């Protein structure tokens, strides 16, 4: 959308083209020549598109002017007073003139300098356009970024140019603006803009404040950025068709974002419903048309391939190839990319918030991207009038948001140009989603860290080049120039900065329409076709590349280029490319993997080939410099100019042998010579071809070997890895074993300790036993002594007894009969003991018998115990 900031007059001053891009000095002249052609084409295509869209609208989607209005207003948040007034006017006008007419072309114009009136020159084109647009108003959907120094002034233009002056005289007056009744029609729910003076919509404003922290200071001044705008309704059917092909992608995206977007989406739905109700109030027709479009979308979704469903697809394709009108381009591109289907409400704002929040906590990679983006922003279309400070802020936000959105890509140089280009054509958030569509979808895998798809495409392109332009490629091979050297940058930059802008944009029209990279190949082929002959004429690598570069950059005939590309190379289609990509991808993946794993360098067979070629040619150049170098005479002129030389030489050689031939045959001879010459040439080229084939063969053999070797190496490495794995496993086992051993040892030690202590115990016990033994022995000896003593005592007793008995006998012998039978018993060792015991027993017995008597009197139950007791008491005696 920034493009609308650019004053057309300023463009013409400093050799910039209509898009504000710098022209190389050497191209200024040619550009001037083509400007009128461009204008003519533009007029023509504007008419055609108008026609097409009119029909679309009347057939597919009857759309009320009301809704259209609403949408245009949505794009219009920051308009100043006179703008609103003008809108009101035009609205009234419209209603007057009947609402069936469509003003598809909104001519946008903006003068940066409020003092500057509209330049006549810059108006010419618009006037021409106005002639075609039946009912137009000029709307500014500009992002007046309202800096103090640079008070951007909006200027609206009515169909009658008289009003121009009027409106330019009017200055912004906010009071006036607020009083405009039209204001109410502005749907701010969709246009997330911020206007200081407005208080009607506090919710989005508050949200915005949160989002753009970084810009707080600026917000104190009037800041109003249109971040999102819908495309005009007349493109809705196109949008619906294109959206149907991104449905799946979007569904996935939605799924991913449900967590982050939950809150946002609920808000969004509220807004949506609000909006709907507003619409209903105002105009019920709007609602029906909306539901109609929804239905159509739904239908489209159910259809797998959208193309056959839309009868006008082919017509649109033709129109796209003829170019999209400048003023529609931004919106048409969005429709093609399916921005509507891709967009997730508030996702972009959330990303931005995330960026500002995570300034410190961001990862290293993110910081790296940020640094790179910072480096690249001033180097993106340097000096472009629209990319001023604010434009660059937008650019920075988009790139940072994208890096955040898809970390697998992050930021890659070239994206800055794409984002910049998109920003020139549409509001910031729209540009973001378009970029998302292009990079995530159309160029999936292209700008990632390893750039795999880009490398694959280069291999595919080279193969196709060899197929289509064998002579050219042969010549490049001969010069030692690789096709990818040239085509690599072409593809990576999607031709931005490679060919003139008119061509870039026309190519992008087709690219975005088709939704794949086929047109890259086709355009590259077209360029090769256009400039191949010139390159074949060059004699060294530098000249070849330089001339191709400079020729490409002066391809001002955009129609020729695009039509050649699209019509001439129909056989190069997505299916074929996919097939070839599949073939080449493994090679790239292998190399990338190698690179990652071993830090090795990219070595493809092409490199080998070119080395071989250059080696071969370095040797052969000197030898072959005299004879024509080329193998199969791509350049007929050159061949002709060489042939006479050749025949002259032959003349000299053959004259002697032909001297005596008949003169009337001279003509025939000349013819023969020419023939011979031709044959020789053919033979030589055949020889050269043979040589080439030989080289190719060698190459293939080498390649084979290399492949084999690398396979072997890989296998060996695998084995090594496996062995290492095994080794490490073994080591692990060993350590485990060691641990177990240690444990066992410890256990052993413990048991040993236990054993020792047990032994000690045992020793102690033995000692105790010993001591006991000793005691026992002592006791035994004591016992023996005692026995002896007893014996002596017994004998003494006996002696005493005998003595006593002797005495008793002497006194009265019958009084002591008992001691005599007792005496043998006393001879046992225990006699003394027994005697003692018996004495005690004797003392007890009378006692017990007393107790028996008493107990018998009370109860007889005790008697058994008494008996046992008595038994017990008697037992020792019996035992003895």
């Amino acid at each position, binding site marked *: 959308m920034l493009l609308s900031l650019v004053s057309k007059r300023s463009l013409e001053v400093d050799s910039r083209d209509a898009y504000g891009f710098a022209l190389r000095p050497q191209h200024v002249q040619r550009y001037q020549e083509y400007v009128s052609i461009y204008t003519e084409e533009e007029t023509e295509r504007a008419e055609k598109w108008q026609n097409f869209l009119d029909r679309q609208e009347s057939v597919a989607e009857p759309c009320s002017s009301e809704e259209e209005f609403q949408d245009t207003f949505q794009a219009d948040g920051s308009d100043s007073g006179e703008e609103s007034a003008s809108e009101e006017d035009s609205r009234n006008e419209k209603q007057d003139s009947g609402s069936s007419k469509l003003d598809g072309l909104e001519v946008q114009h903006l003068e940066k300098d409020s003092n500057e009136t509209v330049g006549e020159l810059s108006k010419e084109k618009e006037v021409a356009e106005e002639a075609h647009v039946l009912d137009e108003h000029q709307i500014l959907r500009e992002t007046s970024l309202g800096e103090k120094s640079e008070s951007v002034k909006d200027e609206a233009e009515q169909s009658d140019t008289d009003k121009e002056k009027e409106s330019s005289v009017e200055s912004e007056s906010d009071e006036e603006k607020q009083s405009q009744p039209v204001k109410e029609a502005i749907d701010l729910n969709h246009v997330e803009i911020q206007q200081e003076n407005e208080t009607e919509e506090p919710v989005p404003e508050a949200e915005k404040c949160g989002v753009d922290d970084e810009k707080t200071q600026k917000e104190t001044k009037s800041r109003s950025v249109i971040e999102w705008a819908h495309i005009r309704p007349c493109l809705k059917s196109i949008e619906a068709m294109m959206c149907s092909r991104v449905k799946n992608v979007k569904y996935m995206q939605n799924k991913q974002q449900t967590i982050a977007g939950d809150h946002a989406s609920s808000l969004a739905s509220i807004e949506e419903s609000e909006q709907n109700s507003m619409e209903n109030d105002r105009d019920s027709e709007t609602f029906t048309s909306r539901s109609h479009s929804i239905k159509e979308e739904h239908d489209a979704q159910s259809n797998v391939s959208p193309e056959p469903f839309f009868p006008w697809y082919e017509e649109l394709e033709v129109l796209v190839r003829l170019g999209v009108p400048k003023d529609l381009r931004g919106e048409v591109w969005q429709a093609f990319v399916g921005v509507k289907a891709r967009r997730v409400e508030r996702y972009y704002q959330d990303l931005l918030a995330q960026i500002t929040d995570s300034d410190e906590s961001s990862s290293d990679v993110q910081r790296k991207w940020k640094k*790179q983006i910072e480096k690249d922003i001033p180097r993106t279309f340097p000096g472009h009038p629209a990319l001023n400070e604010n434009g660059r802020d937008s650019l920075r936000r988009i790139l940072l948001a994208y890096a955040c959105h898809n970390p697998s890509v992050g930021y890659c140089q070239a994206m800055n140009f794409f984002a910049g280009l998109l920003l020139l054509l549409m509001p910031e958030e729209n540009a973001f989603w378009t970029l998302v569509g292009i990079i995530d979808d159309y160029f999936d895998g292209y700008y990632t860290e390893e750039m795999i798809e880009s490398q694959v495409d280069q291999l595919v392109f080279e193969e196709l080049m060899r197929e289509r332009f064998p002579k050219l490629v042969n010549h490049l091979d001969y010069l030692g120039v690789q096709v990818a050297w040239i085509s*690599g940058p072409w593809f*990576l930059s999607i031709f931005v900065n490679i060919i003139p802008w008119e061509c870039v944009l026309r190519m992008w029209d087709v690219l975005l329409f088709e939704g794949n990279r086929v047109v890259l190949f086709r355009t590259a082929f077209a360029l090769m076709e256009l400039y191949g002959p010139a390159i074949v004429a060059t004699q060294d690598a*530098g000249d070849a590349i330089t001339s191709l570069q400079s020729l490409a950059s002066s391809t001002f005939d955009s129609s020729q280029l695009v039509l050649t590309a699209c019509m001439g190379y129909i056989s190069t289609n997505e299916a074929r490319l996919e097939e070839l990509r599949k073939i080449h991808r493994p090679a790239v993946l292998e190399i990338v993997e190698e*690179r990652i794993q071993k830090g090795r360098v990219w070595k493809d067979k092409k490199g080998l080939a070119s*080395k071989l070629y250059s080696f071969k040619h370095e040797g052969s150049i000197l030898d072959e410099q005299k004879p024509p170098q080329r193998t199969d005479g791509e350049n007929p002129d050159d061949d002709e100019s060489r042939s006479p030389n050749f025949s002259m030489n032959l003349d000299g050689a053959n004259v002697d042998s032909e001297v005596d031939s008949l003169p009337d045959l001279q003509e025939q001879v000349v013819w023969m010579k020419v023939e011979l010459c031709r044959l020789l040439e053919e033979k030589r080229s055949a020889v050269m071809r043979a040589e080439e084939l030989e080289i190719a063969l060698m190459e293939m053999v080498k390649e084979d070997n290399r492949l084999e070797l690398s396979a072997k190496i890989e296998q060996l490495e695998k084995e090594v890895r496996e062995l290492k794995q095994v080794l490490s496993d073994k080591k692990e086992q060993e350590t485990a074993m060691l641990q177990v051993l240690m444990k066992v040892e410890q256990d052993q030690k413990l048991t040993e300790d236990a054993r020792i202590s047990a032994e000690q115990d045992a020793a102690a016990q033995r000692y105790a036993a010993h001591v006991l033994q000793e005691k026992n022995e002592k006791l035994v000896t004591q016992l023996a002594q005692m026995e002896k003593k007893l014996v002596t005592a017994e004998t003494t007793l006996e002696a005493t007894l005998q003595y006593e008995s002797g005495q008793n006998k002497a006194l009265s012998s019958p009084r002591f009969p008992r001691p005599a039978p007792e005496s043998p018993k006393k001879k046992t060792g225990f006699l003394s003991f027994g005697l003692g015991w018996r004495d005690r027993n004797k003392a007890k017995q009378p006692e017990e018998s007393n107790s028996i008597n008493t107990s018998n009197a009370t109860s007889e139950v005790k008697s058994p115990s008494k008996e046992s007791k008595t038994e017990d008491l008697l037992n020792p005696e019996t035992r003895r």
Partner: protein
Amino acid sequence: MQLVLLGDSGVGKSCIVLRFVRGQFDATSKVTVGASFLSQTIALQDSTTVKFEIWDTAGQERYSALAPLYYRGAGVAVIVYDITSPESFKKAQYWVKELQKHGSPDIVMALVGNKADLHEKREVPTEDGMELAEKNGMFFIETSAKTADNINQLFEEIGKRLPRPTPPS
């Protein structure tokens, strides 16, 4: 003679080439995508001429995946760093290693410290550059594409160091 310029993003590779080939300096030059090509012929003192076919490569790290395409067949590699950025000097060391590993063995290498005009912001001492160059048998020079200091000298010196027998294409 094919020459390839390598080095971190924003060190001034494109500016050096533009200064050398066109004699221009643009402080706000464009980001290089992929690579760009320019050629220039210079006359040496011994009245021979050398035609430099210069591939100016993109500086961002991921584009180094494509760099081999350009340096593989090159006879000269000019590794550029920015004397105000130690990071770019690190990157230069990486390129030296990369070329030693994968470049052609007899490639002539030059180490260039660019932006010498910003000496008050210098962060990489000249000695560091010299040391790195000496260690790797490179030719070292500090240049300024802005003031054109040493730019021509750089290419002349490279021309002198080229192996004689290779004639200018």
